[in-house]
């Protein structure tokens, strides 16, 4: 989330109706936003649809964007987060049976064909991540997929750097416990406590 001043010029021009300026912002952030939505939804079609909505919405409201130390990318991530939340809410209302929940989703990882074991591990981990509360999912994806620092994540999530660090450790702990549960193994600590 750097080059805030570079974005400022583009945003100013885009707000005046310069489509080319907005196009440059789009090129800069489309992959990051797509990645965030893809890992939140686990579905290519939904990721494309929601990514399109993020950029259409940001284009409509770019005149209202006010940079008070909040980078443009943070604004886009917040729009994406809200749209994903709406998507989950609408999905739960429809009470559809989502195949992705029952069938491991296909991810476009560049794994060799014989790395079945690695794929199964990934599927398990991604399933666990998607069970987390939305703020923890957001944190994990921003950290590992987009490579953002705790400070940058804090700006997006409107939390302090310390709060993000604390949330991060709690999230890792949750993930570890869920993974252990799925694998049917417990840590030595858990086994000791049960005695």
């Amino acid at each position, binding site marked *: 989330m750097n080059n805030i001043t570079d974005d400022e010029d583009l945003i100013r021009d885009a707000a005046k109706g310069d*489509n*080319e300026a*907005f*196009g440059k912002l*789009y*090129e800069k952030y*489309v*992959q990051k936003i*797509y*990645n965030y939505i*893809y*890992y939140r939804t686990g579905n*290519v079609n939904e*990721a*494309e649809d929601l*990514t*399109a909505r993020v*950029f*259409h919405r940001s*284009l409509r409201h770019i005149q209202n964007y006010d940079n008070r130390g909040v980078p443009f990318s943070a604004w886009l991530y917040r729009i994406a987060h809200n749209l994903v939340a709406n998507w989950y809410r609408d999905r739960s209302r429809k009470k559809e049976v989502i195949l992705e929940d029952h069938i491991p989703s296909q*991810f*476009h*990882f*560049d794994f060799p064909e014989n790395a079945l074991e*690695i794929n199964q*591990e*990934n599927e398990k*981990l*991604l399933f666990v*991540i998607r069970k987390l509360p939305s703020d923890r999912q957001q944190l*994990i*994806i921003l950290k*590992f*997929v*987009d490579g953002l620092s705790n400070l940058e994540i804090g700006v997006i999530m409107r939390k302090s750097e310390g709060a993000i660090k604390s949330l991060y*450790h709690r999230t*890792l*702990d949750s*993930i*570890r416990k869920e*993974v252990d549960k799925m694998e049917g193994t417990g*840590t030595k600590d858990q086994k000791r406590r049960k005695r």
Partner: protein
Amino acid sequence: MNIANIEKIEEKLGRSLRPIQPNNEFVYRLQKRLVPQKTIQVEKGSMRFAIVSTFLGLFIGVFIMWIFRRFA
């Protein structure tokens, strides 16, 4: 949770959560919708119109000259 466990989970997450490339066609199509290209339209000339207007101009010119000679 000890450091070894944290590192193990972080390692797994790092392996699983890699950036992926969206479909190029999707990125291109969306860009076209968001940022319509400015087009310059070049009018195609009509040969028939050019010939007719030339002969019409010549005819009018000859007609005007004839009127001047007749009444001058």
